[in-house]
């Protein structure tokens, strides 16, 4: 006189109920059916336990560290990044330039100087600092990687914001250590890396005081040193090395990706 007399609960409703997707009236009727039918109640309880167990078993995957090559895959290829995109918007921009005319030309020049001036200086400084310290066989850094924690704490304190040394082992570069470098107004942190062939890279970080808050990668070559630099939030980054542009860009992507991942995790 129990389950047999009541209309069977639709299979789809059972799953929707288990997944919390059933509207309130459906829930009420399924709960009534569960009271009449212990088998149904047992089945639903076991499906719920199954859901919980699946989550518990699969959630640890989310906490695994993201491999560098996947971070690098979240960016466009080098070729696409450097190819200019001429579009309708650009065409309209050109037309607008003509309309705006020479009268405002001085303003345009002003803005151009503002945009390009500061970053170029940073790239130049970064290249010089790299050339100076990377060439120093015995004392390229002030604090060696063995004391990475102390190094990071010290640089964080001196720069006034949290800095960290990205892990570049995935692309063959191990952290050598770091130092403080004189910057514009605020000091610059320098992390030195080295690969098996003793090639060195340096990543320099500083607080960006002025300039647009943009994030595009820019490239410069100064005295034979390749530099990729970018601005993220209020921080300026420059990655310098005596390697070719494509290789350096790949590593710059890894650096950027790791920093972005940390930020994404921090904002969660």
């Amino acid at each position, binding site marked *: 006189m129990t389950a047999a007399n009541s209309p069977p609960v639709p299979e789809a409703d059972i*799953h929707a109920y288990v997944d919390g997707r059933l509207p309130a009236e459906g829930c009420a009727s399924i709960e009534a059916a569960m009271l009449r039918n212990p088998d149904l109640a047992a089945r639903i309880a076991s499906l719920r336990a*199954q859901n919980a*167990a699946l989550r518990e*078993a699969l959630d640890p995957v989310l906490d695994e560290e993201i491999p560098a090559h996947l971070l690098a895959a979240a960016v466009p290829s080098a070729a696409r990044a*450097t190819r200019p995109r001429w579009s309708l918007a650009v065409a309209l921009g050109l037309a607008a330039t003509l309309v705006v005319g020479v009268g405002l030309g001085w303003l345009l020049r002003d*803005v151009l100087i503002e945009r390009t001036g500061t970053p170029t200086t940073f790239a130049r400084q970064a290249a010089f600092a790299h050339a100076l310290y990377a060439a120093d066989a015995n004392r390229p850094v002030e604090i060696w990687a063995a004391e990475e924690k102390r190094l990071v704490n010290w640089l964080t304190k001196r720069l006034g914001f949290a800095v960290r040394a990205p892990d570049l082992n995935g692309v063959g570069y191990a952290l050598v250590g770091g130092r403080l470098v004189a910057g514009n107004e605020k000091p610059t942190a320098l992390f030195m890396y080295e690969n098996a062939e003793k090639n060195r890279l340096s990543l320099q970080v500083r607080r960006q005081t002025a300039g647009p808050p943009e994030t595009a990668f820019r490239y410069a070559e100064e005295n034979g040193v390749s530099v990729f630099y970018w601005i993220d939030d209020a921080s300026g980054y420059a990655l310098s090395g005596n390697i070719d542009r494509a290789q350096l860009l790949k590593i710059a992507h890894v650096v950027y990706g790791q920093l972005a991942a940390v930020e994404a995790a921090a904002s969660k």
Partner: protein
Amino acid sequence: MAGRARSLLRSLVHLLTPSDSNDAPGLPHPDLVAAIPRLRRYARVLTGEASRADDLVQDTLARGWEKRRMWRTGSDLRAWLFTIMHNVYVNQLASMRREAANVSIDADPGNPAWQIPVRANQIDRVELLELLQHMGRLSADQREVLLLAAVEELRYEEIAGILSIPVGTVMSRLSRARNTLRNLVTERASTLRVVK
């Protein structure tokens, strides 16, 4: 007035500078980076193997970047990327089938290389490992529906959209997946009891 002209000019310069396009080429989208862990989990459930899974994630991210203009801002990026991943996986399977016509994927008796780690210190969590082993015996179709519904907790309509199948098919796959998994677990449990 001058400030307004200046900002107008600034955006004009922005348009005219070749290295700047609207989507800032050269940088991973933070949202894309944030989606990677879930993509890895989905891929792990599909392929059952960590390195193959990451290859699939890599292909998915590349594809996602190519098709980024098709993503409607404001819509769920996770679901959009899941759709891409599902399609990439199905296409890979299809080309594998073409290359090795004698390999049957339907008859896949569960993946021996099923690598989904449960945290190592959870020794008392043997049943979770067993659950994953049982899950590996389900078809990939069933595994992905189970993941999307039970673990990712997506709506059935969203799942249907991701997999390009009717909602009814989602429900029947989900039902089969759950019942098979439950039977496998209880079978195993009763064997254990007999052995004791």
